[in-house]
């Protein structure tokens, strides 16, 4: 299964995503320059973290108009798996692949720390090997991660089970204290209706080895491998 990792000017987690695919999963991976129109036969697309276009205008706002995004949207439309991590999540929201938007953290500070998230939905390509309620520890590193949607969309997002991950405390409860960036309903990650596109602020590709503090990110990549092979 071939992974395609999109590199925008300012992406800085693309190599970590390549590492996740090649070293952790033993799968081939290719970096896709944002100006390209060719996914090079990739079965899975990762929109990595970073600061694409310097976060000019709004995080992810300019990147969504990169030529490759048209191909990524078509891939998603065909049911191909896509994950947006951190800045990739912001880009996926700006591109309309996922509902909502990511705003400045409620506390205004850039947050770089491990967080615990709870798996709310296992019917996605990226959580098929998780169990509902499973807790995962992964790092976050963002200044604009406060998930926001309008009231009507929030009703749909919650009602249709589009929430995939929530920030929780050590007991697995979505408390206000655990909601580090002030997201609506502690939302850390969402999916599209089909479940092939998922976006989240925490970094699973930085949680692949106990040496780095957590290997909890592996299950997302193992899930997509299992789903595509199934």
């Amino acid at each position, binding site marked *: 299964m071939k992974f395609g990792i999109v590199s925008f000017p300012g992406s800085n987690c693309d190599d970590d995503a390549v590492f996740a695919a090649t070293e952790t999963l033993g799968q081939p991976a290719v970096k896709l320059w944002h100006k390209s129109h060719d996914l090079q036969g990739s079965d899975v697309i990762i929109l990595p973290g970073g600061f694409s276009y310097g976060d000019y*205008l*709004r995080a992810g*706002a300019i990147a969504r*108009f990169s030529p490759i995004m048209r191909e990524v949207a078509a891939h998603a439309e065909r049911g191909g798996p896509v994950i947006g991590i951190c800045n990739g999540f912001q880009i996926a*929201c*700006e591109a309309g692949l996922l509902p*909502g*938007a990511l*705003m*400045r*953290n*409620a*506390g*205004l500070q850039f947050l770089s720390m491990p967080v615990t998230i709870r798996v709310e939905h296992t019917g996605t390509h990226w959580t098929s090997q998780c169990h509902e309620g499973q807790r995962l520890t992964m790092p976050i590193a963002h200044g604009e991660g*406060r998930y*926001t*949607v*309008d009231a009507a*969309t929030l009703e749909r997002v919650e009602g249709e089970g589009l929430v995939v991950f929530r920030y929780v405390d050590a007991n697995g409860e979505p408390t206000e204290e655990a909601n580090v960036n*002030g997201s609506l309903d502690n939302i850390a990650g969402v999916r599209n209706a089909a479940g092939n596109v998922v976006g989240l602020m925490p970094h699973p590709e930085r949680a692949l080895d106990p040496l780095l503090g957590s290997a909890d990110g592996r299950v997302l990549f193992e899930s997509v491998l299992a789903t595509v092979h199934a």
Partner: protein
Amino acid sequence: MKSFRVSVHIVPRKGLLDPQGKAVADALHTLGFQAVGDVHVGRHLRIDTTATDAAAAEASVREMCARLLANPVTEDFEIAGVTAT
């Protein structure tokens, strides 16, 4: 075609938490500006463009806002002025 300069204000949508605006308001209170109520921090864009007339220039910038300059989920925009240049 004529030349116009169009000014746009983009501000956080009313009712959404605006921590940046709140931080600025708090700082102003600290400075003694007790009369200050809410503050909202947004962006101001000045766009030089050509159009057949002022209305067309404004319509064009409105479309730019809808498609790129403002996030429809979190931001509102208003045309602050259209001047012939």
